[in-house]
């Protein structure tokens, strides 16, 4: 489903050149739940942005659903993105001026759904996420956990193949964090591919596989359990 070959991303300013990703190659199969871990500045977010078709790599190949997309234009990427990828962010990134309902409805508008279809889908997903009773509230009126549930609702409403989650529990306490992780696990069981960037060992334990980055390169790529054992033995 996703395959990268020697994926490289270099940021250039006037004087400094930073290599955020250095020849990263891996593959993710449909239905997998993969966590990406690593210290700050290791290139996790850069990788996630490229995987999420928000950014192009400087070099290397990126195969997304059997298309080589590394040199796609912004418009082509946007088209592919809105049909196939749902995003969940650490800071939720809900639009404060729009209600819960309107926030969740947004991707469907950009996909050109009719308003009756949108209503059906939004209410379905809000019920599923147990946030239906808050549909007319605005994001700032909700708790962090509720906001993230809205964000997850928005990510899944268009039934994407992949969900990209960037530190989804980073701004939540452990109870709310578990709630969100359970939601993601549930989605994964129903067949959605999930790629998650995280700092949290606990969150990573939900994944089937962990890709560990350091200084823009993959250090290990293991099954969760094995990784936990390895990291314990290293300590």
């Amino acid at each position: 489903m996703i395959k990268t070959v020697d994926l490289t991303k270099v940021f250039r300013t006037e004087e400094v050149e930073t290599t955020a990703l250095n020849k990263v190659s891996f593959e993710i199969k449909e239905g997998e739940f993969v966590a990406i871990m690593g210290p700050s500045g290791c290139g996790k977010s850069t990788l996630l942005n490229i995987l999420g078709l928000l950014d192009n790599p400087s070099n290397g190949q990126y195969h997304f659903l059997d298309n080589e997309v590394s040199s796609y234009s912004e418009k082509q990427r946007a088209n592919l993105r809105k049909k196939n990828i749902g995003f969940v962010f650490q800071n939720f990134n809900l639009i404060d001026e729009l209600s819960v309902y309107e926030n969740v409805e947004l991707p469907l508008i950009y996909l050109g759904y009719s308003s009756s279809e949108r209503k059906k889908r939004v209410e379905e997903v809000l019920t599923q996420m147990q946030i239906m009773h808050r549909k007319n509230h605005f994001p700032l009126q909700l708790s962090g956990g509720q906001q993230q549930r809205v964000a997850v609702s928005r990510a899944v409403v268009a039934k994407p193949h992949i969900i990209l989650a960037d530190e989804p529990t980073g701004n939540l306490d452990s109870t709310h964090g578990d709630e969100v992780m359970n939601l993601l696990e549930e989605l994964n069981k129903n067949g959605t591919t999930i790629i998650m960037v995280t700092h949290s060992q606990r969150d990573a334990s939900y994944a089937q596989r962990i890709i560990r980055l350091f200084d823009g390169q993959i250090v290990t790529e293991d099954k969760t359990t094995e990784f936990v054992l390895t990291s314990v033995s290293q300590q």
Partner: protein
Amino acid sequence: MRSKLYAAINIFCLSVGITGAILIALLLNHELSYDKYHLNHQNIYRIEGHYTLGGSTDHFAITAPPLAPALKEEFSGVKNYVRFHDTPNLSVRTQEADFIENNFFYTDSTVFDVFTYKFVSGQPRGALSQPNTVVLTSSASNKFFGTTQATGEIIRINNENYTVTAVIEDVPLNSHLLFDGLISIATLENAYTIHPNYFWSISVNYTYLQLYDDVTIESILENMDDFNRKYIEPSGSLLSAKASFTGTPLTDIRFKVIQMSPPAASKTSLMILLVVAAFLVVIAAVNYTNLATARTTLRAKEIGVRKSAGATSSQILWQFLCESLLMAFLALLLSLLLIEIVLPGFNTLTDKAFTITDVLQPYILLQLIMITTITGLMAGAYPSFILSRMNPARILKPVHHKTGGSALLRKILVVFQFAISVILITGTLTVREQLDFLDNKDKGISLENRLALILNGEPGNERIKRIQDNIAENPHILSTSKSSSIPGGGFNTVAVHAEADAGNYDAKITTNIVDEKFIDFFEIQIIEGRNFHEDTPGDHANTAIINQTAAKYFGWHDNALGKTIKWQFDQHGIPQTELKVIGIMQDHNFLNLNNPVTPLMLQLPNEEESYNYLNIHHAEGKSQEVIQYLEDYLRREEPDLLPNIQFIRQGYSESFSYEEKLGAIFGIFALVCILVSFLGLFGLSSFMAEQRRREVGIRKVLGSSGRGILALFIREFAILILTAILIAAPVSWFLLDNWLDGFIYRITMTPLPLLIASLSAIVIAMVTVSYHTLKTARMNPVDTLRSE
């Protein structure tokens, strides 16, 4: 680079606002200072006359010559009086050169006791007590003699010798009555002492009274019954006319609109200007606020660092207030430069002579510093307050702040700015359209390619005839005609008895003494009856041609031919002249398009009467040649007659100079307003784009195209602009329709000017908004959504 652009926009915007405010402050200070330099200004009044005849009342700033001495005689509260009698088209000669002068007055010798003028040479006492004496201003003295020390020199005025008895400094421009020279009224003594009854019925001079300190003008004007019985009624009864008088304080005359008064300033216009000044400053400050708040996110880090280093909120508040004050004072410096640039244009527009030194007068400077400080504080208050309250812990986190209330305020201000812009553009276009309409309107009379040689009744009729015959040889001169008045110039209006079914009908009618060519010369249509025949002796002093309005006014309708008009009453009220109507001419606008057509009669002169104008119709495009020819001819053949030649059209056009200026002022303020609104919108859209970067990022991640984002932003601003247009449409329609109602001849309003104005506003707004939005919309969403 970015912050340099913002600073430049800020300073420029503020300086435009401050410049506007300074110019208006200058003008207001000037307008409100009129005539206050006279030491006695609190005790001086101008007496105005209100005359009722034939069912209507006329109000004049001028009164009859005997009024002033009679008032002093009868009322002990009157300390002194001064009369000013206008005498235009004077021919002035010195040994070196000759001049046509239009700003001389005959005046009483008391003028220097009542009014305050500074003497350059000569003495105030007795300066104007003798006949044929004249006092000149410095400029006039310099012009005539090349020196301001002309006391004792001899000057020829209308071919008589006058002695210059004193030279005074130029009359300050903040005087309602401006002049270049004063001639002793004693010179007119003969003319001023003919039969008093006759004189009470004509108004020729301004009458100023100086009262004693404890006397009010009301105490005199409210006790006029005996005065009226003694002086006014005996003469008024001749024509069943009534007269009454009012007094205007000297310092209020500048704002008094009344016939024959020197040009007045409109208090309403000044109020509008004051509002515009306040508006300019507020908008400039608002623009600063918008731009500054737009940059809060950029400065947030700085504040976080400052606060974590120990700065208190009030220190931060003061830092930003000082910053905006500094901006305002930098803007003030730029304004002074801007003023230096725009002052000549402003002077032309307002007929003033301000210089940069006027701006630097202590009291104006004080006002400037106040305006600037207020502007700086107003501009900086909101962003300083917001910035100083920022929590350093929150600043470092990517949390954004909601600004609901102030966002609404900003939107209201944008609507307000654009509504004003649309009103001003609509106004500019409509004023232009009306002026074009007046310019092209069929006046019922031909004025193009026609010149008038001003004779002032000086040369005898035979000499005029000689000139007329001689210049007819010039191939460019098509025809000539003589008259006592010309279209667009001054006319005499007289009281007459018009023949009525029973007895007489007292009425007023404007007269013009003409030759038989006059009707053809101006291409006026005779619709009934015939033209004059100069060779028929019976036509002289016995016949009249009247216009349609006169026939209607006298109630003659279809049978006006053969009716009689009696006038020129003697001291017993017996008319000396009886005219028979021989022709009806089509109505034409003989005064100008500011006045409706009133009753008019033309007549041939009697033996004693002479003409004031020799009118010359020349070939198309030959005006300069013909003027040159006439000047050469007169200097050669008639050396004592000064060539005073004017375009007949000029008198017509001059009557709309105020409207022309109004149009220009409208246009300029429209431009400034659009510029400031444009910059304001630039600021606001940059603010919104900045504030909504995250939202744009989210929307793009969720699949919105750049075009979709642009449409979203434009829709929001379009709502503001459309609201502005909805407000501007009825307001401008109402204001302009009212303004147009002040014209006798006006255009019918169409939506076209409003449409053009609205479209310009929309285009300008869309271009401005698109600039920022496009940048934001093109941005990679990754940049706005970083959470690390």
